[in-house]
């Protein structure tokens, strides 16, 4: 019994390796097929890496939800501090920082670009400013209401609320994510068809062998096995080709991306290939490989019946 089980595994191993051998005997055709599968799998995976980077950038800019409340020029410090306390007690607000007109002028004087301009003024033309940081769970609509209410008040000159574009960016990323899912599904189906068709041709080329095997009493499982293993190898080869393309591609992009980030003064580090994405590429390739082979085998093997 143990011997029979041992033989079973030995036969599978033989079948698996001989399928690989078959692929290696036609290197040009096999590499072409594997290359096409690689490109088809790399495309959605590459896009998903880009989106992940986009999300990371958007996350860094979450602080852009802060909004500035400029008071009317000449408002007293007491009023500004009272307003600061009032805002801090508001439900949507996490913290409020008061930047007084003097502090603002000092900052301006320190800056290289405008430092000389400051000396021109006799009086400080700058107003007090409150920088309001909303709570993380504050919804955009609530913030908009708060900002509108503030703008109505006499002591407040201007409220600058800049959250709209962050919301838009997130919406765009959502759309891109959905598109990637769609593209990935279509391309995986494409890979399924490519492998199915390759296996179909394989079956046609080995028709004589299949007929003779069936004549000699080969079961369907026996006849099916080498083709399923061929599908497995195509899927595995295609996935590895896709990962290679992704790694090389990301390596080429990481330099310019870091430079761009530095120009914006950001500390943003471009994200590479996530483990889950790599596993997805591998899994997608193997599923499409085995699935495509199975479809071809189910359709075409049954049609081959031995004739004498």
């Amino acid at each position, binding site marked *: 019994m143990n011997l029979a089980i041992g033989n079973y595994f030995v036969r599978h191993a033989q079948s698996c390796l001989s399928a690989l051998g078959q692929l290696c005997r036609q290197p040009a055709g096999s590499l072409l097929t594997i290359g096409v599968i690689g490109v088809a799998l790399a495309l959605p995976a590459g896009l998903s890496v880009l989106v992940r980077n986009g999300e990371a950038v958007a996350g860094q800019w979450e602080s852009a939800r802060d909004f500035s409340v400029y008071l009317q020029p000449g408002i007293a410090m007491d009023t500004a501090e009272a307003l600061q306390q009032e805002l801090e007690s508001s439900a949507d607000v996490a913290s409020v920082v008061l930047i007084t007109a003097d502090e603002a002028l000092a900052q301006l004087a320190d800056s290289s670009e405008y430092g000389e301009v400051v000396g021109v003024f006799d009086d400080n033309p700058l107003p007090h400013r409150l920088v309001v940081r909303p709570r993380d769970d504050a919804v955009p609509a609530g913030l908009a209401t708060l900002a509108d209410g503030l703008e109505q008040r006499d002591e407040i000159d201007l409220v600058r609320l800049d959250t709209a574009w962050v919301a838009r960016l997130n919406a765009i990323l959502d759309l891109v994510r959905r598109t990637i899912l769609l593209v990935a599904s279509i391309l995986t189906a494409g890979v399924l068809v490519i492998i199915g068709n390759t296996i179909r041709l394989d079956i046609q080329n080995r028709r004589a062998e299949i007929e003779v095997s*069936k*004549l000699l009493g080969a079961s369907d499982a026996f006849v099916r096995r080498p083709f399923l293993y061929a599908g497995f190898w195509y899927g595995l080869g295609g996935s590895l080709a896709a990962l290679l393309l992704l790694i090389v591609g990301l390596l080429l992009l990481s330099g310019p991306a870091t430079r761009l980030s530095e120009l914006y003064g950001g500390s943003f580090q471009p994200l590479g290939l996530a483990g889950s994405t790599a596993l997805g590429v591998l899994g997608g390739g193997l599923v499409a490989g085995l699935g495509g082979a199975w479809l071809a085998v189910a359709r075409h093997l049954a049609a081959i019946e031995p004739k*004498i």
Partner: protein
Amino acid sequence: MIRFENVTKRYAGGQDGLREVNIGVEQGELVFLTGHSGAGKSTLLKLIGALERPTRGQVLVGGRNIGRLPPRQIPAHRRQIGMVFQDHKLLPDRPIFDNVALPLIIAGLGQREVQRRVRAALDQVGLLKRERQQPGTLSTGEQQRVGIARAVVSRPRLLIADEPTGNLDPELSLEIMQLFGRLNEVGVTTLIATHDLALLDRLGGRRITLSKGQVVRADN
């Protein structure tokens, strides 16, 4: 071993392959199936190998009704029969050894056993030294002997051959038939279809003659 009971085979086109055939072959017998081409010899062998199903009647091999065999059980049935074909059906891109080993690999035997049995079968047909050669480098007669080695390598109890000497000259044909005779002597039930009556006259043996799908003569 083999029993046909009122077997009729009608092909999809409407022509009859066999009509109301009743025959029996006992265990260990050597029987020649004769008749002109188109008489139904091949149809009869196909029914035994479950390559076709009878339209009516029963085909019994070793007590089992082959006509009613579920498709899943057909491979196991074929593994119990050795089949030899007129065009030998060797795989041209595999060495002789691999061709003969195929039935054993299908049956799932271990590597050692495969080597032992393939060598024994090739020795039996006198081609042991040619095991690494491709079939294309052998003569037609030698290729047919490889076909016979492949048919007997899994030690079947039943051997069927469809015109095994169809492409051979009389000298080689006799040689092949004598080979079948030797295999039969060790107990393999053998059924050989041939239209070479001159050859049969030299060999003797029991004959079943078919004409237009019907048995016209069956020796006892």
